[in-house]
């Protein structure tokens, strides 16, 4: 459905939005599904499902190669999504938009290609203590290869980056800074604009892991002045298997290709291959065309609903859930940043998060439990894992009430 940002939404409007998401009406263990695992992956509106199905039913062919009608049509559609994403991110040129498999793939691409060109022995890469393993391991791999080092920005007990410490870490050996826009575990919205500003003062480029930010807030890469920005389609109401890497043209041009194969070449002889220009240089092989088409439909869906509404709605849910959860005796929230996205990590006193997840599942409530691919962060807080409830605009206050009563039930069953 289309929503005008100036109109205050009623619960009735939310029900209309929920109707766009067929899976949300499912029952789990005989109870209505309450889906609070959106930070892991969001559900898909039927507009996205229809776009993918229509593509395969009527429009499919390989892109960039054929002269025939279907191939031209598929290429046009594929490239139109690239332009749509350029606009969505406010990038300068659509050649700065690279389609990848997802955020992890995007970060691996930059770590590998940027690393090969710009990282030497004893150089340093700065990341933060709250990074997802996807924004740690690719950098470790290139550090091992090049003899470089990872430096880590510490955080405070609220889960906020210590900016003074960050500033102190920047030096002439720093080659790149890589931080998340929003923490997947703590929900912290990081001051990425300031991080980029401080890094640029020393001519150091910055990669932003935007996997958690893209579905929740308006991202403008020009305003941020980000050098690289990565995100996944599936967390933003699109299909799995496709993601985006935005990179400034000046960097992408300097970086060697990540993978070799079809589409990324201009000419091949056994003696020498001339690489294609941007963006094809970084898109070897047949791309996930249907996925890109689905992502295009997801961007349309988000644009129709509008970030004004999304932000207001999710902030309201976050505030309501935080208040309600803190009423539960013995519940502790991890991540209390003043600037926070719609995810809450918590523990019930003395109860293992896995047990809580199992009981909530029996009640039809989907949350995530465990270390959320942020083991160093778990170590920072000296815990093995948390329970994480994460919200999307289609969630309701009633669902949060159900979560709270589910947690009370878990406490009763599992408490000593």
């Amino acid at each position, binding site marked *: 459905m289309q929503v005008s940002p100036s109109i205050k939404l009623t619960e009735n409007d939310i029900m209309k939005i929920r109707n766009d998401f067929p899976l949300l009406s499912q029952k789990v*263990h*005989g109870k209505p599904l309450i889906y609070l695992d959106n930070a892991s992956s969001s559900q898909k509106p039927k507009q996205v499902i229809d776009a993918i199905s229509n593509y395969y039913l009527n429009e499919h062919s390989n892109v960039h190669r054929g002269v025939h009608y279907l191939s031209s049509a598929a290429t046009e559609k594929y490239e139109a999504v690239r332009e749509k994403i350029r606009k969505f991110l406010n990038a300068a040129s659509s050649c700065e938009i690279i389609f990848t498999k997802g955020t992890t793939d995007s970060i691996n691409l930059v770590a590998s290609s940027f690393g090969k060109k710009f990282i030497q022995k004893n150089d340093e890469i700065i990341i933060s203590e709250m990074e997802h393993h996807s924004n740690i391991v690719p950098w470790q791999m290139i550090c091992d290869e090049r003899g470089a080092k990872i430096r880590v920005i510490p955080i405070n007990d609220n889960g906020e980056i210590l900016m003074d410490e960050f500033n102190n870490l920047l030096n002439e050996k720093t080659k790149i800074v890589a931080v998340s826009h929003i923490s997947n575990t703590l929900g912290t919205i990081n001051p990425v604009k300031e991080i980029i500003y401080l890094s640029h003062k020393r001519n150091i480029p910055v990669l932003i892991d935007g996997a958690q930010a893209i579905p929740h807030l308006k991202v403008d890469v020009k305003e941020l002045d980000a050098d690289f920005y990565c995100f996944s389609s599936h967390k933003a109401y699109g299909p799995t298997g496709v993601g985006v890497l935005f990179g400034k043209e000046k960097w992408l041009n300097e970086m060697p290709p990540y993978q070799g194969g079809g589409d990324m070449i201009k000419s091949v002889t056994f003696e020498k291959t001339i690489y294609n220009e941007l963006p094809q240089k970084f898109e070897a092989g047949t791309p996930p065309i249907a996925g890109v088409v689905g992502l295009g439909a997801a961007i349309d869906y988000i644009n129709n609903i509008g970030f004004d509404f999304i932000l207001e709605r999710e902030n309201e849910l976050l505030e309501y859930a935080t208040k309600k959860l803190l009423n539960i005796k013995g519940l502790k929230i991890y991540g209390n940043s003043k600037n926070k996205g719609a995810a809450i990590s918590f523990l019930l006193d003395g*109860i*293992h*998060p*896995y*047990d809580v*997840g*199992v*009981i909530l599942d*029996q009640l039809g409530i989907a949350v995530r*439990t*465990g*270390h959320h691919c942020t083991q160093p962060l778990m170590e920072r807080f000296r815990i*093995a*894992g948390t329970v994480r409830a994460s919200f999307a605009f289609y969630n309701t206050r009633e669902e949060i009430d159900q979560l709270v009563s589910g947690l009370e*039930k878990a406490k009763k*069953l*599992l408490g000593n």
Partner: protein
Amino acid sequence: MSIEEIQNEIIEEFSMFDCGEDSGDSWTAKYEHLIEMAKELPAMDEKFKTEENIVRGCQSRVWLHAYQEKGNLKFLADSDALVTKGLVALMVRVLSDHKPSDISKAELFFIEKIGLREHLSPTRSNGLLAMIKQMKLYGLAFHQKQMD
């Protein structure tokens, strides 16, 4: 009792919680029973909670210690999560104190019958599946040792 008989006994025990699918709170009673068993499992001596004895799951951890007594293979086990520990207790009840060869050959059908099969799914990564594999491997290894 044989491994099969113990499994049947457990199925019998759990059948009283089964009042058909979707029916109210039968799952609650089942989990209450499971958690009760977790709490009743004798505490594992800390000296056995070593790196070596850990069966790593992504979600919860399981410790497993095997030793031989009068030709039978016995297990001590524990978990940091209560639901997993309840299932660990059931596994120990079924498999501990039997001949190593019986353990390695045992067919475990009771988990499915008591409606807790989802806990054995590899995607749960609670360490339970790895624990069963480890128990059977111990059975095989001790059996080999006896034969040598």
